[in-house]
């Protein structure tokens, strides 16, 4: 999970990025490697263990899922980005019209608020180590102590105020902390691994010894913990593929790759995927597996105490910085999204209001504890608009349809795009709710449904546009 913190200084928000402003490959490597080591990684890894993953499922599933995510950036996002060189918002405005983009902004802003809330939750667990108040359990929905509410309030207020003043300072701290944070995440895994070796009184002399330890003690598979959904190889693969769906298939990162010289720069996302969404997730999951191994009744997923036990105060600092530096730009961007809806309000006031929503959301542990489902929902919600951009750019000329229809016809709401979004979401959510089971497999769970959803959205947009463009003057 992530939020980009190293945007180029000139934004070119309503014009194509000129040739002189293009950036080299290394810029993208650095940006993606840093931004995907976020506070939420410390929740996701443990939640995999709570979902009963086996060693093969989690290791191979993450390798495959992350590869699919990288390919999505390379083959779907970057080729459009380097040809159009426009931000997603401007491109959507040309296709959908200003009012529909405003609605998209609202959806994006709300999801950003909840995501920032979960990052505040992660940082607040670090305060629990110092102040020793009761912290939420794995299946808690509501805040469970005054201490917890006050901790989230303190963290959320601080983050919101900093975000309201502009996040340049925090962005700088994030850039400085990134290389150090990556190594602390790695240290979490190494310390946890050593503890497992010691507990099992094992000698690790080869990779097969290590794999045996992984299978028999760390990721043992079996039933998930109470209240969690069982994760198989396919769940892990699809989760890793789609957890940043809003950015690749959903096309948010058009805004990033419009600065790339070549579309193959999309491969730079591998730095983020295999550092943040492979190493960091596995490291965090090792710590939680160790906690369960030592006390099977201790099921709470609390990054603060987990990090403190493994790496002491350095670990705690890592949790706070990881949560803080990613919550901050998320609140800032949510504020920008909302400000587009109420342009007469100051950005300061809107960002503070956004931070307040995120803080209240952070008090409810259900969002962080159900992060696997929430992240899938976030991607699903924004995916149809990515399909609209894809179809508009590549397929419309082949079908004799007009791309950038709203701009060319002065529309403020392209109904073909709007209906595509609403109907696709309706169909996908109905499929999720249907609990359809085929040979004991539920192919339309929230983690999978976005794949057929993308094809539905693409076909629907072409079909509806055929009708809409014929009817319109």
């Amino acid at each position, binding site marked *: 999970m992530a939020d980009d913190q190293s945007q180029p200084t000139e934004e070119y928000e309503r014009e194509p990025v000129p040739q002189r402003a293009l950036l080299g490959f290394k810029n993208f490597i650095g940006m993606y490697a840093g931004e995907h080591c976020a506070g939420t990684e410390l929740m996701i890894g443990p939640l995999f263990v709570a979902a009963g993953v086996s060693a093969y499922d989690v290791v191979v599933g993450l390798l495959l899922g992350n590869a699919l995510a990288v390919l999505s950036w390379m083959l779907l996002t970057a080729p459009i980005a380097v040809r159009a060189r426009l931000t997603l918002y401007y491109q959507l405005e040309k296709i959908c019209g200003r009012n529909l983009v405003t609605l998209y902004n609202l959806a994006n802003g709300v999801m950003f608020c909840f995501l920032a809330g979960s990052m505040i939750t992660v940082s607040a667990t670090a305060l629990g180590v110092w102040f020793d108040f009761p912290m939420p359990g794995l299946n808690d929905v509501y805040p469970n102590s005054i201490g917890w509410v006050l901790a989230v309030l303190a963290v959320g207020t601080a983050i919101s105020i900093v975000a309201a003043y502009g996040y340049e300072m925090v962005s700088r701290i994030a850039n400085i902390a990134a290389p150090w944070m990556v190594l*602390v995440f790695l*240290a979490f895994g190494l*310390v946890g691994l050593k503890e497992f070796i010691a507990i099992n009184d094992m000698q690790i002399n080869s990779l097969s010894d290590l794999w045996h330890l992984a299978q028999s003690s760390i990721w043992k598979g079996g039933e998930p913990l109470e209240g969690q959904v069982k994760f198989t190889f396919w769940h892990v693969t699809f989760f890793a593929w789609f957890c940043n769906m809003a950015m690749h298939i959903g096309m948010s990162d058009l805004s990033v790759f419009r600065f790339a010289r070549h579309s193959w720069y999309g491969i730079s996302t591998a730095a983020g995927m295999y550092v943040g969404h492979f190493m960091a997730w596995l490291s965090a999951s090792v710590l939680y597996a160790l906690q369960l191994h030592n006390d099977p009744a201790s099921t709470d997923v609390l990054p603060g105490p987990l990090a403190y036990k493994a*790496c*002491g105060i350095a670990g705690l600092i890592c949790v706070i910085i990881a949560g803080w530096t990613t919550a901050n730009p998320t609140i800032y961007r949510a504020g920008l999204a909302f400000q587009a809806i109420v342009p007469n309000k100051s950005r300061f006031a809107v960002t503070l209001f956004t931070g307040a929503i995120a803080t209240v959301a952070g008090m409810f542990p259900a969002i962080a504890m159900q992060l696997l489902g929430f992240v899938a929902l976030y991607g699903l919600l924004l995916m149809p608009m990515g399909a609209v951009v894809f179809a508009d750019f590549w397929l419309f000329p082949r079908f004799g349809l007009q791309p950038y229809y709203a701009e060319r016809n002065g529309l403020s709401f392209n109904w073909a795009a709007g209906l595509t979004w609403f109907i696709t979401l309706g169909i996908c959510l109905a499929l999720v709710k249907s609990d359809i089971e085929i040979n004991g497999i539920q192919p339309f769970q929230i983690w999978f449904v976005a794949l057929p959803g993308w094809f539905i959205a693409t076909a629907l947009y072409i079909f509806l546009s055929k009708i809409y463009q014929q009817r319109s003057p």
Partner: protein
Amino acid sequence: MVRDEERNTMRILLQLVSTIALIATILPSIMFLTDSLDLAQTKLWMLIATIVWFIATPLWMGQPSELEHEEVVI
């Protein structure tokens, strides 16, 4: 000109300190894994490395280097 050289030397020194701090962040956990360090020492060394990293790195990271400056001037 002399001041520029001093600044460049200082920058290189600070980068060296940061690199050592970075190595010192991960090394204790590797030594813990190989039984060369206990957990309390690991945590202590990681904390020291963290402090050094956050003191040394902001002094050069994000600051324009002399090389970049010269390129712009030329």
